[in-house]
């Protein structure tokens, strides 16, 4: 019973983080901040949800598979975020603050 409650708590908080990251994806001012928001969704929320599901299913084959998924996600999604940002930097996109500073300097 306690396991059930903990698992549901984990899943719910995972959902909360997922929603946060979705909001961030739309509301944040520039590309890099949005990648950051998406990163939350990929790592924290996915991890919480999967942990919750693992507790829910108990010690079975499904749990092991879920663990593999978690491992894969934690391994790949930071790398892919990294490469997306790298590509963006490479193609000349600059963070919002840098841009802002530049415009400020011009107006000064």
């Amino acid at each position, binding site marked *: 019973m306690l396991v059930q409650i903990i698992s549901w708590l984990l899943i719910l908080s995972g959902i909360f983080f997922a929603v946060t990251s979705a909001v961030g994806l739309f509301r944040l001012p520039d590309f890099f901040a949005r990648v950051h928001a998406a990163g939350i969704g990929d790592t924290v929320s996915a991890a919480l949800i999967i942990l919750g599901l693992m507790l829910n299913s108990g010690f079975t084959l499904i749990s092991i598979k879920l663990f593999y998924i978690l491992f894969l996600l934690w*391994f790949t999604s930071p790398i892919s975020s990294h490469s997306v940002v790298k590509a963006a930097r490479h193609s000349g996109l600059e963070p919002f603050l840098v841009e802002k500073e530049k415009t400020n300097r011009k107006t000064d």
Partner: protein
Amino acid sequence: MLAITALAVIRMRSLFAVVILFGIYSLLTAVLFVVLDAVDVAFTEAAVGAGISIVLMLGTLLIAGRRADADTHTPLLPLFIVVITGAVLVWGTFDMPHFADPQDPAHQHVAPRYIYDSLAEIGIPNMVTSVLASYRGFDTFGELIVVFTALVGVMALLGIPERRQSRRQVSEKTGPEFSGPILTIGASWMIPFIVLFALYVQFHGDFGPGGGFQAGVIFCSAFVLYALIFGIELTYKTVRPKLLILTSASGVLLYAGTGFVSIILDGNFLDYNVLSNTPKAGQHLGIFLVELGVGITVASVLILIFFSIVQSRKRRYQMQPDNHLDSQVRE
């Protein structure tokens, strides 16, 4: 969701976005396929539509440019044609058997044998694999030939990928130096797992979703990742295009050879029953060989096509204009 994505594709003019949206569309379709119980198909659609097709399309975009011009001609005629066709189809559905009704003729005639007898006749639990490789084995052979034909076509058009001679031509924009430590280490950790997974899918196709084709696509994706991170030149060193040409042909020959062996052993073409002492063992052996052939060919064909498209950026093609009177008497 699917409809919105499809409509967005029509409206968008950034080709990059169009291609990525198509990937999303494919993934959504794959999810829909899982809901509709077609796990094998979903697997393939995800691997092909959201995987290899996108890679090839993006490779093309590198050369063809990213933006589409605004459509110049009026869309009225196409719209008219499309509306008429759609209306005819919808009209036609009114006499169709209803969705998911077990009494549909589609589920009454041929399918029950596949569902209820295939375990006894072929001996493997995944019905899709038994139908694919045995009952309708010739379709799969045809499918393999289609992939092979595409390879021949791409190579005829874009030239055969070759290793470059001089080492200086390695461009500074690719290769491990460019990718940085995070990507290189990440990729070198991932690639063995991808290959392992491909092998699992290849040999587990009898029991779960998967099979030669999916395995081939996954295998190919490992090499695409390698090429993206470590640069195409190193990839050529890892796996030589000539070797791939050989393996792509040998996969087809393995499939056809299985068929011929069954002819020699006094069965019909692709009749696996005669391959071994008992029909079931024969079916096992036959399906194993055939799936192996599919896997080998698909993997090497897709890698080769990827190489060709990537390499074609630098290649030049001579095209003679049509009206050349200067071509004098030959011989």
